[in-house]
């Protein structure tokens, strides 16, 4: 394309630039403000420079119980990730063949995205209380998270299997492999890069999920709930420091997942 770029290109490029600024600007502000001196406030200008507030996050009593909330959210994210990957791969495989009721199941899965999150939280809360089961992050909150992560994972897996070439499996069967061998040795390695994407998606959606957890986390908060609680009673940059730390953690995970994805897809080409 050696065509001269039209004016609209530059206008739209400028608009895109502004949008990126809009997306990342607020982040950079809390990042800067969390590096203030101990006299720091919630707004600019910055008062000094130090790592004081980052350290403050780990002082349990001052800003709430950040460390154990993080541990719960992390474990919950791993649980959600494992279940999401396993169930969506199975369901994706089922949808490679047309079966009676597949449409109904498809729409049931997608409808989970159309129900406002607060209703899922409320509904699960009501069911648990009617059954007399206590809400906990690893029971009711886990259930709420799965209704959010599974539809996305399922849609991704259906797309992955649509593009999957079945001749690899046929070749494997022709050579005498049974279903299980074909799955573990042929299919799974081939879809592994996509599974990383699904896993990361499941983990981050769960790790940051607020609304679907809000009524059903039980007595122990997950991290987003803990942070939301802090917004009303923490008026120091410790709040921003916490934001900076967990955002950095999310970005780190995304980076690791992209690296793993590239490593796995390169290995397949080689």
């Amino acid at each position, binding site marked *: 394309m050696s065509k001269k770029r039209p004016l609209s290109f530059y206008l739209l490029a400028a608009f895109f630039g502004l949008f990126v600024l809009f997306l990342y600007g607020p982040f950079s502000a809390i990042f800067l403000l969390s590096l203030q001196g101990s006299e720091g406030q919630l707004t600019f200008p910055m008062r000094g420079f130090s790592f004081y507030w980052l350290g403050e996050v780990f002082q349990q009593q001052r800003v709430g119980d950040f460390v154990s909330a993080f541990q719960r959210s992390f474990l919950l994210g791993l649980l959600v990730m494992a279940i999401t990957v396993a169930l969506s791969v199975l369901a994706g495989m089922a949808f490679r063949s047309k079966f009676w009721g597949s449409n109904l199941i498809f729409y049931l899965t997608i409808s989970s995205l*159309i*129900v*406002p999150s607060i209703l899922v939280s409320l509904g699960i809360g009501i069911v648990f209380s009617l059954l007399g089961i206590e809400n906990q992050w690893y029971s009711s909150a886990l259930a709420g998270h799965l209704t959010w992560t599974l539809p996305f994972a399922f849609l991704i897996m259906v797309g992955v299997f649509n593009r999957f070439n079945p001749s690899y499996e046929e070749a494997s069967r022709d050579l005498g492999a049974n279903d299980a061998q074909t799955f573990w040795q042929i299919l799974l390695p081939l879809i592994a890069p996509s599974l990383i994407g699904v896993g990361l998606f499941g983990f981050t959606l769960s790790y940051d999920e607020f609304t679907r957890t809000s009524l059903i986390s039980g007595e122990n908060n997950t991290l987003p709930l803990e942070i939301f609680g802090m917004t009303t009673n923490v008026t120091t940059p410790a709040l921003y420091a916490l934001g900076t730390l967990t955002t950095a953690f999310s970005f780190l995970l995304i980076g690791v997942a992209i690296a793993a994805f590239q490593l796995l897809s390169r290995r397949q080409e080689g």
Partner: protein
Amino acid sequence: MKKWKNIQPYLLVAPQTLVFLLFLVIPIAAILMVSFWEFTGYSMTPAFTWDNYAAIFSSPVYLATYINTFKFVAIVWLITLAIAYPIAYFLAFHVTSLRWQIVLFLICTIPFLTSNIIRMISWIPFLGREGVLNQTLMALGVTNQPIEMFLFSDFAVVLVMVHLYSLFMIAPIFNSMMRIDRALVAAAEDAGASGWQIQKEIILPLAAPGIAIGSIFIVTLVMGEFATVRLMSGGQSSSVGYLIRTQIGSLQYPMAAANAVILLLVTLLLVFGILRAVDIRKEL
């Protein structure tokens, strides 16, 4: 062997379906049931009464809350669409290399993988009395005293919701624009169509399914919102989601459930309206 092939898909899809039956279908049925129960001061008792619904429809406060919620939905929908369409168009049609398309799209996506709550908080230093926005306006001489209304106002609520949810509009529109056959655009150009005609006759109709999916996401997300409304309006504005949250806080489960049922019905009505207007099956 033949039989095994027939039941195999059902076994494979069973675990996932069970999750949705147990944690989506049954809970919604439970909400519906409880919405007809009685609430007597401290606890709820099984009954079949329309009182909860009657209370909602006869209270000006509740009705105002519903109207406020619809207002947020409409405004956020309009703004996200106005942002998402040009952004998606730029990425799909002006960025010519696939690598750059992916990189730029990822740049837009990454903030959405982090916590909503933290992205909400990050607006505080911008919007507050001594925030960046006020400092800038005062330095420019636009105003000589800080404008109070930026933080803790409907303006802040809408701004933050746009920040939180615009990707849910961008991604589906970008996706459907990427599927548009470039030959169509080239043919229209050769036939002498103007830029506007190409937009109106080719790109907009073919991107419509993406716009519909994005709109469904925005409607659903903003409808049930309570965290943004609570935090960014400073408790001065309300929404149905926030109302439900408050009623749960005071253990009025039947009232909360009745509100939830109405919220769900309205949301489904809007979604079906969108589906009637635009056929999204091509995208699935």
